[in-house]
């Protein structure tokens, strides 16, 4: 994962810190956003390899952000891993429809998170 760039959008600061620790330890560079407000601008600027996106955000839903991203040509192929704390199959389907490449229910095993992000990061290069 060395040289890989991951953008993380997660409002729960403790969870964000855990994910950053896990991915950073594996060699990736992590940019964290606590809200989805100016996510597209950041993504266009950073051009990450993988986006880890929480579904439940305080200001706007992760699904909304994903739809928006997919509408932008430069970001249409960005690999996206969606995280949800609700963990219902409904959410998985909704995430897939919105164009997520992978889906992970909270709470997750750290190894699963790392494996998913790694797959997406390497598939993307």
């Amino acid at each position, binding site marked *: 994962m060395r040289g890989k760039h991951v953008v993380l959008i997660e409002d729960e600061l*403790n*969870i964000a810190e*855990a994910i950053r620790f896990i991915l950073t330890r594996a060699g990736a560079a992590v940019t964290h956003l606590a809200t989805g407000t100016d996510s597209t601008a950041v993504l266009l600027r950073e051009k990450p390899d993988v986006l880890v996106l929480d579904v439940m955000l*305080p200001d706007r839903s992760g699904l909304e952000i994903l739809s928006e991203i997919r509408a932008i040509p430069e970001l249409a192929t960005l690999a996206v891993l969606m995280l949800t704390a609700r963990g219902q199959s409904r959410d998985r389907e909704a995430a897939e429809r919105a164009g997520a490449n992978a889906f992970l*229910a909270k*709470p997750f095993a750290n190894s699963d998170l790392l494996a998913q992000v790694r797959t997406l990061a390497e598939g993307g290069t």
Partner: protein
Amino acid sequence: MPFNILVAVSLTYVAVLFGVAFVAERRAIGGRAGWLRLPLVYTLSLSIYCTAWTFYGAVGYAARSGLEFLTIYLGPTLVFVGWWWVLRKLVRIGRAQRVTSIADLISSRYGKSNFLGVVVTVIAVLAATPYIALQLQSVTLSFGVFASDTPEGWAVPDQGATALWVAAGLALFTILFGTRNLDANERHHGIVMAIAVEAVVKLIALLAVGLFVVWGVAGGVADILARIDASPIADWELKPGRWAGLTFVSAAAILTLPRMFQVMVVENADERHVATASWAFPLYLMLMSLFVVPIAVVGLSIMPEGSNPDLFVLTIPLSQGAGKLALLAFLGGFSSATSMVIVAAIALSTMVSNHIVTPLWLALRVGSARAPGDVRGLVLMSRRLSIAAVLALGYTYYHLSGGSAALASIGLISFVGVAQVLPAMMGGIYWRGATHVGAAMGLITGFAIWLYCLFLPSFGPNGLLSARLIAEGPFGIDWLRPHALFGITGLDPLLHALLWSMLLNTGAFLIGSLSSFPGPMERLQGVAFVNIFDQSSGPGSWTRSAAEAEDLLSMSQRILGAEEAQRFFQAQATAQGKAGLLPDPTPDFIARLERQLAGSVGAATSHAMIAQLSGGTTVSVQDLIAVAGEAQQIKEYSAQLEAKSEELARTARALREANEKLTELSVQKDGFLSQISHELRTPMTSIRAFSEILMESDLPEDMRAKYAGIIHDETRRLTRLLDDLLDLSVLENRKVQLNIGVANLHDILNKAIVAASNTRPERMFVVQRDASTEHMPVFTDTDRLLQVFINVISNARKYCDAERAVLRIEVKKRGGQAQIDFIDNGSGIPKKVQALIFEKFARLTDTSHAGGAGLGLAICREIMANLGGSIEYLPGQGGAAFRVRLPLKLSA
């Protein structure tokens, strides 16, 4: 002529009459009454107006007072020729309302007032008494004439006994004639026929005597005219007052005499007969009066001085040796007397029985079982007794008055008496404003004056009133003298009584009517009477024909439905042995149809509809009221149905709403579970992730401590969330156990502020209070109240976005409630989410900073509801503001 032969002739004559009546009755029952219904029979039956008074008395009247006797014929003639439309109206009303007597007419018009029925009955009975006495007197006199063969006619050995026997005989005769059966419509075909025969007999007898006098005794028409010119009759001066008064009273009497009402209205078979009678009856009267003056003149000239002119009709033939003619004349007089007595007694007995005896009997027998047969027997018996009583009264009057007065003067007393009914009657049929109060006042006033001024004095000085009272007035009160009321002197007693009674009667009637309001029944009857011609087509327009059956069918189809009506008609036609759909409209079939329809529309409506179509009777107001009653019931029933279906609709609506609510709740529950899932999974995610990190990595000590701290915090968060959820669940189900104690509100607020200051984040936070307002004891669950205060204060502390956060706490006492407002100086809560803040998980900002799961205010709301108070957002205060209200004393 032997007295016994006379009696035998009389009895034979009566037997013949009885036979006539019997045959007529039979034919009427057999439905072959065709010739009984001739207008001629009706006209002849009206001739009971001409009683013994006319037959004997008119000659006597002419001998005493000249042409004045004509007034007695003039009145009725004017009514029949000029006012026949009044008669027609009476007849129409009588038929439409099934009136049985004049008392019934008045009672029915004034809202079925039985009181008025009784008043009219009493007036009629008392007024008829002199009249019946007159008949007794004339028959007794005529017997006497034959028995003694003396021109004076006074020499009957025992006049009183003869009169008694005559009275008893007439009573028996009338009972046999009039009450053999109880006719539903009070019609007596047999009697009408018998009196028609009698009318012919008396006319022939009087004409025969007249012809005999003109051409047998005198020398023809020229001679008679010469004799008239020479006689004292030609010298009688005409008194305009008496002429007008007598014409008026006889005109009134033809309308109000009970027996005239009986034959004219009650026995009327066809309204069109009135038209015939309007010329035929005056003609009859003219024939009856044609020879009165000649007989009187001849009598005065050939009979000895002092002979009774009332008996000239008998005594002239006798004195000339024309025994057979005298016998015919006797039969004529007998006919006149008997027909009057029979019909009068029947009419009066109907009134007495219907208005006095039956109501009394029913009132006395309230509660006891009574079979229909009982009433029938009672009515017959009461009528028979009434007939006997009426004749007994007549005899008593005859006995008390001495039987010596001129026939005409006795008759006029009766006329004035019955005329008292006139204002109430005419007012009743022409003035809708006439009320029963007015009618009663008029009737009683007129009756009292008649009684006092005419009836009681008629027994002669020292009869029923003392001579002194008549001369000086009661207690010497001059203006109350019976013959000079209110100081009016110089009038003869009859005119005096007529003037005052009719004047005051009419006045009282008008005043009473104008100053009272008619009841609803009275108003309806008033309209029915006054507007009788607007309501229905004339009777007799319907004849029994195939068309009628067809109309009945078309009506029935509308009520029963085509199929059922046709099935019913078909079955009835088959039962009658007829092919096709239409049965003959026999009474039997019509009765069955009426019952059939009654099942659908009610008895009264059914009866009214059938009556309308079969044309036998018109629909009366009672029928319509009954119809309205049924319609009302149906309306009420359908209103009930409507209410029921409305109720059903309401229930359906409620069910639909409940269903929607359940669906909504289900959605909410799903949302809630998903929220809970999220709220639980979020801290668990941190805990799991950091636990794994701690387990697998060799971390520096400071990071280990930091991550362990996060795990610790998240675990507490999780616990708090679970506590809140359980708490909320208990509160929402109102199963919470409240520990009610007492505390000072000020102290609770202190504790809350201290507790809230310990929560994160640390910041400057000023609380403004007015302690003096806060001291009040509250009886409530103080721990729960504290929980609410802590929540509200820490919310302000957390979310107030002012740089220098200030929370103002204001306490007020409102009635039995404390009102605590928490107002901060932040930017407040946006209007669109104000309604949401008390909902579960309604977090407006990022929870991880706030450290709550968004259940705080929901819990607060539930706690306040449990404490009998409330918490609500208070808009328009600048910052965020919450108002808590609670009862100072919570009733456990």
